[in-house]
């Protein structure tokens, strides 16, 4: 078990270093930040001084080593734009992003699990048809469009929920639905097919022959077996919600990490982009690690083989 965890942590570290190199190089391909920071008529020697001051005159590999060395001590540099430490900016926005991702995930699971299980149990019935229709609809409607529709209906027409901003539960509902909308479809399908497989198995038949109530068979015996593929998927979705919620964050003016990074990209604010992306990749890797570890809790066979 310790060896297994150690190996996974090592894999994770390699991924994070890889991500940091990639983002470092790619962000520098986007253009020269000095051009955006100084007025157009700035004299060349001022531009040169500024470049030297920020360390942008050095070769790329040296810039990276300096960045990596500082990053290890928790120093991601000052934001070019806001003149505050990039790390503070990122850490300040992180809780809002996590809050939104958790809410989106809870919404999608709460909808997908009952829908998937019931479609499998009542295979071929109207419930199954509704589930399938819903799954197709979910797949066909992108999150940003769902978000706009929600704002149109619940904020503008009905005036029930605030259209944007961050605050109580009422601010969270629509962004969470918009973010969790798309995964519902895929999760419903995976729960349904896993449940169909498990419900056909000998141990469920045996349980039924020994008088197990249908409720216990479905929700306890079958669902726990069907949960493994779902958990894998949830890990991936949660991670991508953390990193990929920026569209939803922009639509709902949600003060999260995604929106901050997008703004930083536009202003070529390298330290913020680097810190933001690095944190997102750390979260991503951590999520996957937790998913790997959680298999053992669900399925004892993996606990042993791992």
């Amino acid at each position, binding site marked *: 078990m310790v060896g297994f965890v150690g190996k996974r942590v090592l894999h994770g570290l390699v991924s994070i270093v890889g991500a940091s190199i990639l983002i470092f190089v790619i962000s520098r391909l986007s253009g020269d930040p000095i051009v955006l920071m100084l007025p157009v008529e700035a004299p060349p020697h001022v531009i040169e001084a500024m470049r030297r001051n920020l360390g942008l005159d050095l070769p790329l590999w040296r810039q990276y080593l300096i960045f990596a060395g500082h990053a290890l001590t928790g120093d991601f540099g000052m934001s070019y734009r806001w003149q505050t430490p990039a790390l503070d900016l990122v850490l300040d926005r992180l809780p809002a992003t996590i809050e939104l991702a958790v809410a989106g995930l809870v919404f999608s699971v709460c909808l997908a699990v009952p829908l998937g299980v019931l479609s499998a149990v009542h295979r071929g019935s109207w419930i199954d048809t509704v589930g399938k229709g819903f799954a197709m609809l979910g797949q066909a409607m992108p999150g940003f469009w769902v978000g706009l529709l929600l704002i149109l209906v619940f904020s503008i027409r009905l005036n029930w929920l605030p259209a944007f901003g961050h605050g109580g539960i009422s601010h969270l509902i629509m962004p969470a639905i918009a973010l969790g909308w798309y995964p519902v479809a895929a999760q419903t399908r995976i729960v349904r097919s896993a449940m169909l497989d498990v419900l056909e*198995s*000998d141990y469920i038949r045996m*349980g039924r022959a020994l008088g197990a109530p249908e409720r216990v068979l479905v929700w306890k015996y079958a669902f726990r077996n069907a949960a493994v593929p779902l958990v894998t998927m949830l890990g991936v979705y949660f991670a991508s919600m953390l990193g990929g919620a920026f569209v939803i964050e922009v639509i709902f003016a949600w003060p999260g990490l995604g929106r901050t990074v997008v703004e930083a990209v536009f202003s070529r604010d390298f330290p913020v982009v680097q810190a933001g992306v690095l944190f997102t990749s750390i979260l991503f890797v951590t999520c996957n690690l937790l998913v790997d570890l959680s298999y053992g809790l669900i399925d004892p066979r993996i606990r042993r083989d791992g």
Partner: protein
Amino acid sequence: MVPTATERPGGAELVPAQPLLKIENLRTHLHLARGIVRAVDGVDLAVAQGETLGVVGESGSGKTMTSLSILRLLPKPMGRIAEGSITLDGTDLVRLSEEEMARSWRGRKISMISQDPLTSLNPVFSVGDQVGAPLRYHGLARSRRSLRETAVGLLRRVRIPSPEKRLDDYPHQFSGGMRQRVACAMAIACAPRLLIADEPTSNLDVTIQVQMMELFRELQAETGLGIILITHDLGVAAGICHRIAVMYAGRVVESGDVRDIYRRPAHPYTQALLAAIPHLGGGRRKRLQAIPGMPPSLIDPPTGCRFAPRCPHRMPRCADYPPSFQVGPTHKAACWLAEAGA
């Protein structure tokens, strides 16, 4: 392989006046898109307390459908009992509601062990959790601790070594034979009256098959359990059964005391099945006897004897379905050839 009289508890009254289970004229149909499959087509069977009845036949002969009919667990929605009665302890199971079946019959009075020991236990729950589960379903567990103690007792009864230590283990940590023992412990947890064992040993190796059969015999001696052993293997059936019913194409073609069936098989199908058992020491010269042809389709079965197209003794009379002729005191065969012997 044939048990001697001393090995057979209650061998004297083979068909008592009041059998534990009595199946009369059972007809089970499967409604498929291409037609109605008459999977069980007028079957009569009886099992006495403490008796083991072997139901033998090829796959598709209706033996598994018969057992699923008893449990009322036919595949939904196409499976239906069209006619007949299944009386256990004086109650006709066919008339019970699904809820009554689940609450007070399945697992409580009738139990089942399924075919494959490797897949009949839930992989994500500990063995201790599973063994005691039937007691929980039927409200027979008083507390968590007493349930644990009962589970240990059950595992001990099926001869699992140091059961206290193995209670928290998971199925994958047990061998195939041990898993089948655990499944057996689950099946007898609520002290059922009837146990249906559907090919319980077909995926086990021979020494473990023998151990399982010994286990069945011990449990039967202790509790007076009636057992229906469903198998395609006449050799396995000979080792444990008191009586045998041979099924072919949805009907019982021959039934009787195990020794009558083996020594004086009256139906050509039974004779062919016996000839198809491979014998050790037969030498290379003796080839394995296969039964030529295929069983008939059960969607539109022939009106006469269903074995006739494959039968070496086919006669013009076989166009009419033969009634069951009494060949011996407890021995019956549905074949015109047996009419002379009756």
